């Protein structure tokens, strides 16, 4: 499929954990972009991106960086997997590595993280996370436009 897919991961009822779904909702209706929201479960993710060549995954991050700051990773190389002692859920990095092992990764997978400030109950994003969401919406749009321009130029 020539359209790009943006997948928002996270729980919109837990404050800044909702940044992924917020980005997906803001990008809904943009020409050339399909959006989806997903819990991050491996089989669900694989089913969600199946058939798409270009996929953007957006999730909240807690790294200690300034709230709202963006991190861009690609799945070209294996993602670092934190040591986990619990299996109540597989993390996003584990889901992506599982998909790689199963040869089920899309040809291009970009992972965007937005640093969260608060993961408290409620649907409200912190001002810093909301500004991170706005910045990321613009940068995904421009990333796709540049690609389109580059393609058009190549085509000429």
């Amino acid at each position, binding site marked *: 499929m020539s359209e790009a897919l943006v997948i928002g991961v996270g729980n919109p009822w837990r404050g800044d954990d909702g940044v992924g779904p917020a980005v997906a909702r803001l990008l809904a209706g943009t020409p050339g972009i399909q959006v989806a929201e997903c*819990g991050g*479960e*491996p*089989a*669900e993710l*694989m*089913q969600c991106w199946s058939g798409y060549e270009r996929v953007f995954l957006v999730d909240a991050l807690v790294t200690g960086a300034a709230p709202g700051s963006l991190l861009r990773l690609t799945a070209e190389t294996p993602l670092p997997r934190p040591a*986990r*002692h*619990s*299996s*109540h*859920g*597989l993390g996003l990095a*584990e889901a992506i*590595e*599982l998909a790689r*092992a*199963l*040869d*089920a990764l899309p040809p291009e997978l970009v992972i965007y993280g937005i640093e969260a400030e608060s993961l408290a109950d409620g649907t409200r994003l912190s001002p810093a996370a909301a500004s991170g969401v706005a910045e990321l919406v613009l940068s995904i749009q421009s990333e796709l436009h540049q690609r389109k321009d580059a393609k058009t130029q190549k085509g000429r």
Partner: protein
Amino acid sequence: MTTRTIEVNALARVEGEGALYVRTEGERVAEVKLRIYEPPRFFEGFLVGRDFREVPDITARICGICPVAYQMGASQALEQVCGVSLDPALENLRRLIYCGEWIESHGLHVFMLHLPDFLGYPDGITMARDYPELVRNGLRIKQIGNALMRLVGGREVHPVNLKVGGFYRAPTPAQVAALREDLAWGLEAAAEALEFLAGLEFPDFEMDYEFVSLVHPDEYPILHGRIGSSSGLDAPVEDYDRIFTETHVIHSNALHSHLSDSGRPAFMGPMARFALNRERLTPRAAALADKAGLGAVCRNPFKSILVRMVEIAFAFEEALRLVEAYQAPARPAVEMMPRAGTGYGATEAPRGICYHRYTLDEAGMIQDAKIVAPTSVNQPSIEADLHGFVQDNLDLPDDQLRHRCEQVIRNYDPCISCATHFLDLTVERA
């Protein structure tokens, strides 16, 4: 005399946080501790002073894997206090969502947590490179369980559509019928996976367990039954507190349980259900158990992976039957009026009996709550297995012994987070 200690300070591929400590002196196992250090959860305390209608939404939070068990046991106990019984159509819908929970919980454990032990991989992701088809099918099996929970429960983790008295909204026949194809695929995939699993090599190890599970005359137990055991116990759920004595041991934040009469540990979960209810399995699941070489009783805890797989097949078969017979219930829930009193509930969570007891006042406020998770009951059995297994395998070097000990624990699919309401391994050899 040489002392050996084997320790695992944070157990992997179990639900929650725990550790293991084994100390041997010469040719004798001197001490075994399954340390559950995940902090206590205090759910029973949170519930006191709450309206009885709030309970299933709170108890759902005890576990992300088996929330339905906590919602159902609570609902049953509260319905008993209020003198209400559910319409058969609502009972069937409860059994259907519970099948979804067995499928997703067992599916995760069999394929991602337990199988790497038998095939010699550190985790499911590494295993997936060499066994992609098996892992792909395992993930899909789990996903179908999730879909079943989502349809009936509103969402797969901590479902929101369950209430005391039934459901907020019942799914439409068309929505339920849409699951049929996936469930039929799941039953075949489970049969195929069981054939593969039956070919695995299992350590030669058996224990003389006292199996305890719900027992029902007409069905393989999920939601209903009396408390039965391999030594002939047959008692109503109301007797649970008399049957079991809970004690606090210093190395665990989850209370241990023993049978009050004999002082023996009880073994709960798939192998107990299977031992006490095998003849009430659905026909296909029973045939698959035969084909996998499971006799009337399985006492090798490593073979629990086979029994779990049989139960996955059972849950698919049972869900198919319920889906095919589904008609929208006349009402999504039974009206409930509070009454003062004490009620008891017990269902078969994926890991065994999940027991609930609540006392209400006339206004329906919770005065007292007691919840017992099966993993907490299984702790002494896990320790007995470790004791027996280490004693039989003292010739193994520490690293191999440590790895085997972790497997002994994973055989139980322990849900430490539920139980604390626990795993690191230390072996000391003297």
